[in-house]
């Protein structure tokens, strides 16, 4: 399902409800299909795009990884498929109940809930895998059917949301009302955007810098919504960034450590991950990687460390990755490999705690917009 961003409408009340309806219909469709097969004395089977590595392609148009034309069929007739197929149908009925009742569940909960139905998964990896299958079949990410990972990512800024979760329907909250930021959990993910006074998003890899930005009132000085990705951004966060980018037309700027791993955090927000090639609407192609770049280490004379062998190996991998096709990526990978140095965001503190906010940030924002 593709969402068309409604133009500058600050209030989009039907959006979340509509998505829920689509997801619920998808789940019901899965049940009806299998039910019909069984009623006709046929072996039930479910067809879905193959997620094997040779069916994952980079799509220039959507600027993300997508699945190709290969499909797999999970058939109850195959003894090796009958168990995962049963687990898939069970998971479908479980999340259908969750979603209908407006409850949420963690991946871990799903793993344990299965045991009540004698559907035990061997381990959580198996249950996580089945949830990914269900995402593939339904075409929606698990957050859309109310299964969430542990929360760790946060947001702060002048955005007023309106809850849709049970018990809080219609209630509003300004995301600048708590100075530690608000956890990006199920309630926030399912909320509508009511009012927004920011004009950009700034995503930050590290919690320390996120707190510094709040203390230095970056949200006021630069009219920004601050997002703490807490390392690799969770899907709920990536999906939220995309929604804000599309629905609220906010440009997004990403700041990470100056090393291959930080660079990749920015890249996944922009281009998505191969693991989520079966899903759409998780990436924000227009988001900008603003730093910290390899060249910043030189330009700002930042304290730095030598790259490890692992870092260098990773850089060579990224060099071949189609998501790193852009000029900027190529240039920075080259610089990393040339100087063989890396630096953390905190390195700016050598120029005083406010330097990064007062000097570096405006310079970068200007350069990138």
């Amino acid at each position: 399902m593709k969402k068309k961003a409604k133009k500058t409408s600050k209030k989009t009340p039907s959006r979340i409800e509509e998505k829920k309806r689509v997801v619920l219909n998808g789940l019901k469709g899965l049940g009806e299909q299998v039910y019909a097969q069984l009623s006709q004395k046929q072996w039930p089977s479910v067809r879905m795009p193959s997620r094997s590595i040779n069916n994952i392609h980079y799509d220039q148009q959507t600027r993300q990884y997508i699945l190709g034309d290969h499909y797999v069929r999970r058939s109850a007739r195959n003894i090796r498929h009958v168990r995962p197929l049963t687990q898939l149908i069970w998971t479908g009925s479980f999340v259908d109940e969750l979603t209908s009742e407006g409850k949420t569940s963690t991946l871990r909960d799903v793993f344990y809930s299965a045991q009540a139905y004698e559907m035990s998964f061997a381990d959580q990896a198996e249950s996580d895998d089945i949830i990914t299958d269900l995402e593939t079949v339904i075409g929606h990410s698990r957050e859309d059917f109310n299964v969430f990972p542990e929360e760790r990512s946060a947001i702060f800024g002048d955005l007023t949301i309106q809850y849709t979760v049970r018990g809080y329907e219609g209630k509003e909250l300004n995301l600048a009302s708590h100075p530690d930021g608000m956890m990006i959990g199920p309630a926030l993910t399912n909320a509508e955007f009511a009012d927004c006074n920011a004009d950009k998003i700034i995503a930050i890899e590290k919690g320390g810098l996120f707190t510094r930005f709040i203390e230095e009132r970056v949200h006021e000085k630069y009219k920004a919504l601050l997002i703490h990705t807490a390392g690799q951004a969770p899907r709920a966060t990536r999906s939220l960034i995309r929604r804000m980018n599309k629905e609220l037309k906010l440009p997004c700027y990403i700041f990470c450590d100056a090393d291959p791993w930080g660079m990749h955090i920015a890249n996944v927000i922009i281009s998505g991950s191969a693991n989520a090639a079966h899903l759409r609407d998780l990436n924000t192609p227009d988001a900008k990687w603003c730093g910290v770049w390899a060249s910043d280490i030189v330009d700002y004379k930042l304290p730095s460390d030598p790259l490890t062998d692992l870092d260098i190996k990773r850089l060579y991998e990224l060099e071949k990755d189609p998501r790193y096709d852009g000029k900027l990526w190529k240039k920075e990978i080259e610089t990393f490999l040339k100087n063989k140095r890396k630096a953390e965001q905190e390195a700016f503190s050598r120029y005083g705690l406010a330097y990064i906010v007062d000097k570096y940030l405006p310079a970068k924002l200007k350069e990138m917009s």
Partner: protein
Amino acid sequence: MALQEVFQEISAADFFYRNRDIAGFTNPTRAIYSTIRELVENSLDACETKQIPPEIYLRISHESGATDGPGIYRVHIEDNGIGIPYDIIPSAFGQVLFGSKYKLRQTRGTFGLGGKMAILYGQVTTHGTATIMSSTGPTKIHQYDLMIDIQKNKPVVLKHKTHPNENRWHGAVVEFSTEADYTRAMSKILDYLMETAIVAPYATLTYVDPRGRLYRFDRVTTQMPKPPEETLPHPYGVDVETLKRLIDLTNERTLVGFMRTHFHRVGRTIATSFLQQVNLPTRKNPKKLTPEEIVTLVNGMKNYKFLAPDASCLSPLGEELLEAGIKKELSPEFIAVYQRKPSAYSGFPFIVEVGVAYGGQIEAGGGIKLFRFANKIPLLFDEASDVSWKVVNTQVDWRHYKVTPDMPIAVFVHICSTKVPYKTVGKEFIADRPDVEREILNAVREVARRLSLFVSKKIHIAHDKHRLDVFQKYLPKIALFSAKLAGKSKQPDVSPLLKSVLRYEEESEEDIEEDS
């Protein structure tokens, strides 16, 4: 004054008394086991000679002393064999190395030693007498109470009386007291009787143990193996001493005649050809051979290609009886038996018979159980030194036959020969003679092939059952959850699909990849 060395001749009985270890009478545990074994074997032999289905009654009762260590027990055995002529009874039971077994034919015992050793051991440990009653079938039963004069190797008859024999009974009863550690020997004695029942399915064995418990092994057939025929020595098995004795005995005047008359499977042509090869004149009088010529003759015999000994002197069990024996004692799910053609080592003919069985009372785990028999005697000790153990455990690649160590599988190896190649006098394990080893290996491979067919089928059935179990577990759940998910109140019926599971042979084990 220097001590004068005293030289004295000792009797055969004395010799074995002093060396009772070598005959299997090492300690009270081994002694009672050997006693039972020797008595049972003599009884079986006495029946089989004339193809009488054996009926053996054995009783051991506690007489005095400890029951949890060495004590005095009374042993009683009865059989329905041919019986012993009354005038021979004293020597047959009271003179070591006297007997009917010094001939070249297959019998359980070889030396006529075991039964007498049992009596001798009883005598020296309890100072009691042995009572023997026997009849060959006429009107009288003879009873002797006797002891053995160890130094002279002579029976001492203390009492001889006769009883009327109205029923024309034939057989023998032997009874005497002996020292035994029965508690320790018990499990081996029971194993021995059970394995004897396997290898003699035509025998009925009844045993009453010291606690009065009755064990009964009933015959399942009255068919018996053909009794062995007596045979001449084969040239390959002859040494200088044997040859000299034959020369002393012979009435033949020429070497050709001598060879024909006294050797197994030697005719005029072969005798002539052989004598030419060793450069001895065919018409020479054997009694005129010089010692050098005798040695030449013996050495020549080892190198000439004589016909292999035939197996008429052997009495194998036969596939049918071996199968019946295994079936009756272990009731396995599967059984395969195989008898090899006769073969020979060093001039002694032998036949290997093997069986393999799966399931029933055979315990699973711990690898393949091995049951060894030689001339219808179960071998219970020193398993790991035996050639069959070597073949089964080191030469056969069981994985090749789809056999895994957790399966309940037993292998049975029976070797019969005029001279079983025991490694020691204890007669408990068989030497790894290459010819014997090869025959066992080939035989085991043959039954293993048949076993592998059964095992494959079993694996296949288990596989099918597993499939059905899996589908039975999951299909109803798919029905339940799909109905729930589709919002239907009635679950679809999965039984038609389950019914088709067992008929469904092929299935794709891989994901079906398709292009859209």
